[in-house]
């Protein structure tokens, strides 16, 4: 049952909370480790920075069984269609964490071979900066995602969801938007 199809009233309110809690407690990541960030992702899953305490130690090899795609590493032009195909094979609800600066924006490789940010190909929910982000940063990103799932902000946003059209030439000077992680505060 999709959460979005439920009529939103006081009876179904607690069911929604339960479903959201269940979804956030067992997010299963799909292996999409490409380069150096993949090593830090594996470290996050290993002993010292344990991902199993969040229910996430099973890295599903098949995208059909996974909820979360952590794009860890630089996406080259050759890899971009594969990335899109794997994302399409995942089933709703699905989330994407863009790990590292190469996945978020092309990173230090501003050249012909690297896609300048995977959000050119797939919609991203949380960006984790760093080169590579240490496992603590990745866990912070994962907890941010959990909080977004728990508050329902993600499903609300998707439901309203027409993509924002960017103007071609912004007339006013560009002001950076505050990233979501800071707005929500440190997750407990």
């Amino acid at each position, binding site marked *: 049952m999709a959460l979005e199809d439920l009529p939103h009233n006081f009876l179904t309110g607690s069911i929604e909370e339960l479903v959201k809690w269940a979804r956030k407690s067992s997010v299963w990541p799909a292996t999409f480790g490409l380069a150096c960030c993949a090593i830090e992702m594996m470290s996050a899953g290993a002993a010292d920075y344990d991902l199993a305490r969040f229910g996430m130690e099973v890295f599903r090899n098949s995208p059909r069984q996974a909820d979360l795609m952590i794009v860890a590493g630089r996406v080259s*032009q*050759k890899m971009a269609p594969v990335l899109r195909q794997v994302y399409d094979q995942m089933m709703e609800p699905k989330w994407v964490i863009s790990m590292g600066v190469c996945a978020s*924006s*092309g990173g230090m490789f*501003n*050249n*012909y*071979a690297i896609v*300048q940010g995977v959000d050119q190909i797939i919609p991203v929910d949380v960006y984790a900066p760093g080169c590579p982000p240490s496992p603590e940063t990745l866990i912070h990103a994962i907890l941010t995602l959990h909080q977004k799932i728990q508050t329902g902000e993600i499903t609300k946003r998707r439901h309203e969801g027409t993509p924002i059209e960017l103007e071609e030439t912004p007339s006013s000077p*560009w002001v950076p938007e505050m990233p979501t992680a800071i707005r929500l505060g440190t997750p407990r």
Partner: protein
Amino acid sequence: MGSRDANGNSIGDSSVSDLALGELNDVSHAGGIGVDQVLFPTREAYHGLVLRLKESGFEMCADLCAVDFLTHPGRALPDGIRPERFEVVVNLLSLSQKRRVRVRVQVPESDASIASLFDVYPGSEAMEREAYDLIGIRFSNHPDLTRILMPEEWEGHPLRKDYGSGRVPVQFKETPGPR
């Protein structure tokens, strides 16, 4: 014009038939950093020279790469070698004698093709494909000369100096000019 070593001494005519082993053992001059000797054959003599080097104990081809000298201010070459835009550089390693030798061949831009070393060193197959993919030098008698790093339908050869780096302008950093 025959092949020459780094001192400008001729090491034989284009058939390489009189390449004496003693000339290969002369390590009194270092023509390059990290190698004991640098040789400059012509394109015709290249394959034969590498074959002779392999027979005289250079078991491994450590690297094969291509260089684009379009924006280079000027490089030192022995007399008799005409500089061209591209160079194919082969580094050979002899494990038994603990020596390295470098072979540099000039490849003109108008006819960017050279013999393949696949029958001498099978490991050069992937290296030559990379040189073809990124610089655009065709290797004759190569079993499978296709793009290896870029997608199949990519156009252009990215590592050439006249191919832009493909930078997109980002906040806080405008695209730099060439250095």
